[in-house]
């Protein structure tokens, strides 16, 4: 069991690194890069959602802001793309702190409302501010690697997204073992009690919110220079935000590799549906139905079914009743 739990991630990591050389064509490299991008975003989402239980449906706001921030810095200010990427991610993080201070004051359903409102607002701003952003016609971002052809660019970005995923996973792992992580978990179990025990709940929540926004913004920035054209309707869509939630829930929000597993299922399935069913809206229905089924029948995710909380750094999720059953004969 121990060997399996140690060895399996290493094997998967090796396979992931070799992936672009194992697949027969560049389309699959592209699909792989997209999947890894979603995995990185879902893992980042889980830095907030998994630890604190706060469900944000609006993380695509940070994705879009990261993308537009990077794109605008490259196009309008002529900044090198790496600098633009880092600068815009930093700006988005500051923005997330400001929004977070307002957003995390409210709990439960109201927080979800705020998160949905955030995406709609950003969409309105970017479409309305035509002189800066190009409005609904979108923004064209020049390729960072003009020497490479399209397929090679996909390959480069596959590894960039893989690096981002690794950083996000490492952050989650580090937080899960830290005092900060313990505080966040206490917030999830009982926020009032955590507060009364001296956990600085507001500061912790804002930090988790901003950290999670930072990685999503980095993914957005990479997406901007990778794709080269930004469409406000797609970039600020609720759908991207809901993918992050669906992937995390499906895999298991309380496990390090839960969102990654969810992304490995949802993202390729989404791409497949897009090819098989064309540009109809039926993929929305598929996503919606899967979400309904997961919420109803598998709210703890796939990993919760297979691991009995032994393998991997996962968070125990016993209820008081279960604990009571454990001690009473």
């Amino acid at each position, binding site marked *: 069991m121990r060997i399996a739990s140690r060895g399996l991630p290493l094997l998967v990591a090796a396979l992931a690194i070799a992936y672009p050389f194992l697949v027969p064509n560049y389309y699959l490299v592209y699909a792989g890069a997209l999947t890894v991008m979603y995995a990185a975003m879902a893992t980042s989402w889980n830095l907030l959602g998994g630890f604190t239980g706060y469900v944000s449906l609006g993380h695509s706001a940070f994705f879009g802001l990261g993308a537009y921030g990077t794109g605008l810095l490259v196009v309008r200010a002529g900044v090198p793309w790496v600098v633009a990427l880092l600068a815009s991610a930093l700006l988005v993080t500051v923005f997330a702190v400001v929004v977070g201070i307002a957003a995390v*004051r409210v709990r*439960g359903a109201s927080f979800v409302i705020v998160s949905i*409102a955030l995406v*709609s607002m950003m969409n309105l701003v970017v479409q309305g501010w035509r002189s800066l952003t190009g409005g609904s016609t979108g923004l064209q971002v020049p390729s960072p690697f003009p020497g490479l052809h399209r397929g090679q660019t996909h390959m480069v970005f596959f590894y960039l997204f893989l690096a981002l995923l690794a950083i996000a996973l490492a952050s989650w792992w580090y937080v899960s073992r830290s005092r900060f992580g313990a505080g966040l978990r206490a917030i999830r179990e009982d926020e009032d009690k955590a507060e009364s025990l001296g956990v600085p709940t507001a500061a912790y929540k804002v930090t988790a919110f901003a950290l999670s926004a930072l990685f999503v913004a980095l993914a957005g920035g990479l997406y901007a220079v990778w794709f080269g054209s930004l469409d406000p309707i797609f970039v600020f869509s609720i759908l991207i935000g809901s993918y992050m939630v669906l992937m995390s829930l499906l895999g298991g929000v309380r496990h390090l590799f839960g969102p990654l597993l969810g992304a490995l299922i949802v993202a390729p399935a989404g791409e497949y549906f897009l090819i098989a069913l064309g540009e109809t809206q039926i993929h929305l229905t598929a*996503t*919606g139905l899967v*979400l309904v089924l997961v919420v109803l029948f598998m709210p703890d995710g796939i990993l919760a079914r297979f691991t009995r909380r032994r393998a991997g750094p996962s968070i125990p999720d016993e209820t008081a009743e279960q604990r009571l059953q454990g001690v009473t004969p």
Partner: protein
Amino acid sequence: MVSLLLQGLALGVLTGGLYALLASGLSLYFGVMRVVMVAHPAFLFLAAYLTYTVHTAFGLDPFLALPVTVPLFFALGVAVQRLLIARLAPENLAMMSVLLTFGIALTIEGLLGTFYTGSYKSVSMEYATRSLTIGGVHLPYDKIIAFWVAAITLVVLFAVLVKSRFGQSLRATIQHREAARLVGIQTERVAGYGFGVGLATAAVGGTVLALITPFFPASHWVWIGKLMAIIVVGGLGSVIGAALAAVLLGVVEGLVLVTVDATWATMMFYVFLFLALLVRPQGFFGGRLAHRF
């Protein structure tokens, strides 16, 4: 300038009436189940599309769709509550119900997009295209009709909630579920009917919406933002608060629409949402949750 402001004010009041009707459904769901029903606007557009079909296929007046859509939506509401929402675990009902209804919304949006395509549809009636002019202020007939339909529906809704035995049980369930159960109210059944009534208001709202504005499947997201802002400003769960907030935000929207532009008019909803959360998270008109009607 004065007539422009008057125009904005009048339009705002008329639209605010419709907003009040649409937000009342959300207040009901939140009241009976503590559920934020993100799918309400999706059902609204489902009703709008059904109205569109009735109108284009049979050439009937859009309001003649109501005898079909209202009972249908009532049944759908009962089904959604009994088959889906009642199954959720109570510990994290708020979050899970939002995700569940979000999934329902995506499902409906996808189906509408598949059956009706993603392009704009509209239902326009000869009688609704003209407008009434009073003292330099133009009031389109379709907006007036929408206002009156909303007003009548709201009055009926209030009468049901205040006078009928079902309304009493529903209010008792909202105020104190356990106590209501103790005095013999079948709260599960009442909650189901509460959902049914909420969706029935969406059926009426959708028909009105089809008459006054063009619609496409993805436009329900805009309405989620607007309606959520209204119920947060009004105080989650308070039907009266939601109605007051609806008219207030309708007027603000109308005034900004005539003086600035449409983007800022929509933006005002979010500005008010954030203001309400920062200053008075319990809402400006509602008081504690759903304790009054």
